[in-house]
């Protein structure tokens, strides 16, 4: 039985949904929402883009298929940055979600709507997607638990692609136990997504977190303070905590943006006003002109920026310097993580270098500045490592998140850590007055 508040009213205030189910089934076992880049029968899948207006998929994404089979009812599709390009969900064509702790501030991105829904709507779990930090970032900004599993653990069948070698479906919720409850449901081999096949299965008994390596990262004073008290708390949980340095991490952000925009730009090529979404251009135009006109009119600014950047990084004459180099750098970063994991169960950093910025502050940021907001969340994402953001404090009234990263396939250690953490950390709820 599920018991939900009036979602349309909530959505008017917070704008977390791009589409709400027309009728809520109260018979279902549980309620869940899905980021709008996951296909679900009965809903549009527009991935925050005007060019996909009207795309009604005929198949459920694997994760949604599994949630529905397990008795879940899909209550709505959540708002996001167009195709996943962004860290503040401001690049959305269907509404910008507002932070429940301060509606003048961002929910983070690109799964901003998912984090907002998780924070505001009790008794529901949100499916999100992370490519460079798009689950951890909004989870941190909205004070909820957000888990991105190992790349390949969850099938990407039905996920509208951003970075094929980095996209991961994950879970956001106020309740840490939801992560451990729903990850087993959505995980597993799916022949429709070869990248999800033949991997070590998720452990059924979650192993305990025993040791953590802290990597110092650039962060504001308020964030630093929250992390330091989190460190103390971990020690009191009998977790060994030690500070380490990781030299290769500073290359993660540029390598990520090279690879993600290269892959992303190829995924956006198909959006040209044919076959799905908007198809109403002037067909008497020559095809090059038709495609150019439709794409220029219906793709957003950040999407165009990433497409130009990504096309450049794989162009003749630049491909070796950027695309091929980034692939090698990724391997070097993974190697360094592996050497840390020989001695520690997890790596700890703040999730984000600051609390959620105000919308007007974000509008004043340059593109590079917005990319640099991901400096802490990108390294595990680039490396395909499972990671979890947990609320660990408040600064200026806004939530601060801490991020634990574990080795490939050790997702269970993070799930048990989150459950343990929740027993100790009293999360302050956002005001939800309707």
């Amino acid at each position, binding site marked *: 039985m599920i018991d939900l508040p009036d979602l349309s009213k909530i959505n008017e205030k917070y704008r977390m949904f791009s589409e709400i189910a027309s009728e809520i089934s109260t018979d279902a076992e549980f309620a869940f929402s899905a980021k709008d880049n996951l296909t679900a029968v009965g809903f549009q899948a527009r991935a925050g883009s005007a060019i996909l207006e009207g795309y009604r998929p005929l198949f459920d994404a694997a994760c949604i298929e599994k949630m529905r089979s397990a008795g879940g009812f899909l209550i709505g599709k959540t708002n996001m940055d167009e195709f996943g390009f962004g860290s503040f969900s401001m690049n959305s064509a269907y509404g910008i979600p507002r932070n429940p702790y301060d509606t003048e501030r961002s929910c983070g991105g690109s799964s901003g709507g998912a984090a907002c829904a998780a924070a505001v709507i009790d008794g529901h779990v949100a499916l999100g997607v992370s490519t460079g930090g798009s689950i951890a970032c909004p989870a941190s900004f909205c004070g909820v638990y957000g888990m991105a599993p190992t790349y390949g653990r969850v099938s990407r069948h039905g996920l509208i692609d951003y970075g094929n070698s980095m996209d991961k479906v994950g879970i956001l919720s106020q309740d840490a136990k939801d992560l451990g409850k729903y990850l087993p449901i959505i995980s597993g081999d799916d022949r429709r997504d*070869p990248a999800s096949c033949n991997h070590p299965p998720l452990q059924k008994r979650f192993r305990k977190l025993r040791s953590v390596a802290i990597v110092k990262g650039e962060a504001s004073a308020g964030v630093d303070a929250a992390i330091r008290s989190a460190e103390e708390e971990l020690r009191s949980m009998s977790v060994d905590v030690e500070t380490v340095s990781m030299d290769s991490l500073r290359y993660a952000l540029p390598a990520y943006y090279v690879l993600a925009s290269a892959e992303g730009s190829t995924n956006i090529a198909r959006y040209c006003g044919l076959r799905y979404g908007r198809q109403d251009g002037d067909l008497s135009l020559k095809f090059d002109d038709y495609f150019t006109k439709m794409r220029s009119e219906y793709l957003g600014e950040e999407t165009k920026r990433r497409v130009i950047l990504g096309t450049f990084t794989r162009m003749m004459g630049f491909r070796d310097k950027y695309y091929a180099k980034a692939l090698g750098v990724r391997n070097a970063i993974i190697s360094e993580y592996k050497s840390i994991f020989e001695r520690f169960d997890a790596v700890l950093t703040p999730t984000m270098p600051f609390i959620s910025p105000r919308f007007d502050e974000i509008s004043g940021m340059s593109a590079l500045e917005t990319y640099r907001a991901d400096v802490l969340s990108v390294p595990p994402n680039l490396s395909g490592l499972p990671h979890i953001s947990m609320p660990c404090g408040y600064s200026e009234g806004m939530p601060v998140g801490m991020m634990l990263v574990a080795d490939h396939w050790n997702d269970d250690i993070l799930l048990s850590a989150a459950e343990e953490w929740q027993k100790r950390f009293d999360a302050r709820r956002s005001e939800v007055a309707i």
Partner: protein
Amino acid sequence: MKIGLEVHVQLPTRSKMFCSCPTEGDAEPNTRVCPICMGFPGSKPSLNGEALKLGLKLAKMLGCTIPDTTWFSRKIYFYPDLAKNFQVTQQETPVGLGGVYMLGTKPIRITRIHLEEDPGKIKRTADGSSLIDYNRSGVPLAEIVTEPDISSPAEARKFLASLLADIRHTIDLEPDSERSVRCDCNISVGKERCEVKNVTGLKNVERALTFEMVRQTKVLKAGGKIERETRHFDEERKVTTSARKKEFEADYGYINEPDLGVYHIAKMASEIENKETPMEMTARFVGDYGMTPEAAKQIVSTDVRLAQFFEELAAATDTETAKGFVSGVISSHWKGFEPSRGGLEDITSMIRRFADGEITDVECNMRIRCIMTGDEDTCKICSEDLDKIVGRALDENPSVIADYAKNEKAANRIIGGVMKETGGAYSSAEIVSAVRRLISERL
């Protein structure tokens, strides 16, 4: 003059390269399509194992080096028939590199062979807009690229005919199915080369190359320069025309295809055993049996089973004898002859009798003709001596004739007796034929 070809062959799989849509069946447009081959957002590809195997068979047939690991690439360009505006192909790791194809005694070097997916098909409407059918989108292709070792348009055609015969034989490709062959043809008369893209069928390849050869020669003779460019072949007017300059400027921006991952193919490749190709067999006949290339080609191209029978016959008797009969009477009557095990054995024993001096070559040829065609007149002549033996047997058993009118099986006693008496001098077919004929005559 230098000619190089990029040959695209559709592989005979039942489902498409990256999805399980059928490759054959309903010809109505857009009936064999799915979210994957139409590039719908959220869809993911999955590689057809049979397509990979067929690609490896062809790589081996061409004598290519096969890598231990292979993967796929995305080749990005925008066209309405390309469902994702990128084609999944193999840029970095083709399934085969550096082979050679023997066209008779001339080696044509093979640069590479790789796997990729076919785009859809476009029909142009009266008002110029397009109508697109994605049934073909995603059909598996093998692309074979040659070095510019071909010396003339006629040789190009010869090469393609021969290569296709070998490909058909190696991967069981239907000869006249929907599966067509398309070529991108590169030709340079002087220093600079031009590419004629997407030419369908062998005749058109020769025509397109001939036109280009003439065009380029004319330009050079008049003191002009050949501009390196991409051209199209107009099938109706039989001319090549310049494509828009934009096509040549395409930057495909290749990246690796992460959705498919990598394939470790060393084991699969080593386990592949290709059938001997007609080309190989022909070459072997020339070498092992001292046949002329023409004679060898004639036998092999008539029927592989005829060629196989030749080898059995040469082993049972000797090479010269086998050559003589196979090239002669056996080839002449092969079409229409159903080569059963029994029939072939009868022919063999007949030739052995000739070789042993028991019958003349004239008689042997007649008997073979009788076995292969069942022609009454021929068989009658052959069996004159036999007629005497059968006649005697019928004289000794007159009741058989009356019994035969009621039940044909009555003849079996006579047949058995004559077979025993003649002890293999005549084939069972001849004896049965003679007994029945003579009984009928007496009825």
